[in-house]
């Protein structure tokens, strides 16, 4: 005879232990469960893929460390894709911690110890080329190569700060910042996060305000993503895509249907889908961290579904739906 009450009052630490096992083991025994990209992620990918060196995008690192596991892989995936297409990328942050995370994310893309990454050329390093008039991407790269610079083995290309990439960083009252950038990016960010004059940067000269920006991808763990829609899309028609945590995803599906956002990456799954598309498109040699977590995610979901089913069986089989009180578990 099963003691259903005891079953329902099981010490929750056993459940934590089971979850821990299910989360750790699949990292060592890879199953490679398929990840099928959804339409809302594919639309972001397609838009970035259609852009080139004459366009520009913003990536808003609008989250804090609490949601890093979900948002960081999205940012890294989009940044990597844009840089591979030579699309200039401006990076902003709603919070000071977001700026630190953006630097971390960019550093992971510029770490040349790992094959498939990019070589970062800081603003000051290519100053002589700038002075010689090489500011166009192609001419600059040719001159850079002619000067004897060569790519390390496995690297995908150079990223010139100010031409391909600018970390604008954190500013407070970000709604006002987006509103201001609708008129001029440089008035809001006279310098980048490292103190370099933004007005001198070729990518800013070509894209002076948000009307000249082709996409803003905001990665958020809070409602901060709406700044871009409220003050960017509504005011200057800026195309915006969301990379939000899974908890928030259902809140923002209506904005896809209303056409206010281009697409949405929801949680780690959204990031994994973007990584799959990127890999299929030949922009990366391997998929990233998010994809690696998907086997684990699937198994953990199966375990939780089992918990819910078993809990319900015990609840009804024990007749607790007829009783008024059930001893609470630990």
């Amino acid at each position, binding site marked *: 005879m099963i003691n259903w009450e005891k079953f329902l009052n099981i010490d929750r630490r056993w459940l934590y232990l089971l979850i821990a096992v299910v989360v750790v083991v699949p990292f060592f025994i890879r199953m490679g469960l398929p990840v099928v990209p959804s339409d809302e992620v594919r639309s972001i990918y397609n838009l970035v893929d259609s852009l080139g060196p004459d366009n520009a995008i913003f990536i808003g690192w609008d989250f804090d460390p609490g949601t890093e596991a979900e948002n960081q892989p999205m940012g890294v995936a989009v940044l990597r894709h844009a840089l591979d297409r030579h699309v200039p990328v401006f990076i902003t942050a709603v919070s000071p911690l977001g700026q630190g995370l953006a630097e971390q994310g960019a550093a992971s893309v510029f770490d040349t110890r790992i094959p498939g990454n990019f070589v970062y050329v800081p603003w000051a390093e290519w100053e002589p080329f700038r002075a010689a008039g090489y500011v166009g991407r192609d001419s600059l790269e040719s001159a850079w190569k002619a000067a004897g610079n060569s790519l390390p083995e496995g690297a995908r290309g150079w990223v010139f700060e100010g031409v391909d990439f600018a970390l604008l960083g*954190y500013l407070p009252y970000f709604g006002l910042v987006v509103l201001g950038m609708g008129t001029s990016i440089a008035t809001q960010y006279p*310098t980048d996060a490292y103190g370099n004059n933004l007005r001198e940067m070729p990518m800013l000269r070509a894209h002076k305000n948000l009307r000249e920006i082709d996409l803003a991808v905001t990665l958020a763990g809070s409602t901060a993503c709406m700044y871009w829609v409220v003050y960017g*899309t509504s005011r200057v028609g800026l195309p915006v895509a969301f990379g939000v945590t*899974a908890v928030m995803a259902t809140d923002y599906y*209506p904005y896809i249907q209303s056409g206010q956002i281009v697409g949405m990456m*929801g949680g780690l799954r959204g990031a994994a889908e973007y990584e799959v598309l990127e890999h299929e498109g030949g922009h990366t040699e391997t998929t990233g961290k998010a994809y690696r*977590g998907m086997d*684990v995610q699937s198994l953990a979901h199966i375990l*939780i579904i089992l918990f819910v089913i078993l809990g319900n069986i015990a609840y009804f089989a024990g007749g607790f739906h007829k009783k008024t009180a059930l001893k609470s578990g630990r």
Partner: protein
Amino acid sequence: MYETIGLWVAAILTLAVFSFLYKENPLYRFAEHVVVGSSLGYTIVITYQRVLYPRLVEPVFLHGESLVLIVPAMLGLLYVTRFFPRIAWLSRYPMAFLLGMGMGMAFPYDMQAYILRQIQATLIPLYTPGAPWYNTVGAVVIVLGTLAGLIYFFFSKPHKGPFFGFGSKVGIWIIMIGFGATFGFTVMGRISLLIGRVQFLLSDWLGLLH
């Protein structure tokens, strides 16, 4: 060297936070306080570096330019009066300024983004010739779901009869389905956060994953 120290500190703090799953303990408390303290410290430094220094200290106090910036700086300083009960009322001025500015700035754009465009998205044809059948089903669900949800939150009439009674019942079902979807996404989100930390421990810290 510094990278290795950073990895170990992050790993130990992660394990300290996980120790809460067994039971509350001083190690967990310590980690919690370190997170709050270090985040605040980092925020203060970045805010000074990115905002206060280049936009106030440098132009006004080092170059003697843009003296008008002293006015908003003084207004901001009034927040500090919160610590002195006798003059604490002065802190209401910067608050009033921010509230007024925020409301004025947000109102037209918020109306547009949160309300008008969302209403517009529900004013759709139920049937579009040539469109696939599932588009029609989707359109019906959106229109009827929105109406039923609104009926549920209409409290000026009792929820009885074929319109308000049935409508509010459908409305609560629609809302419950919405909660279910949100809960599913929440579970996914929490597991994702755990995956992120486990990946960090196994890969970055222990180097067991390649």
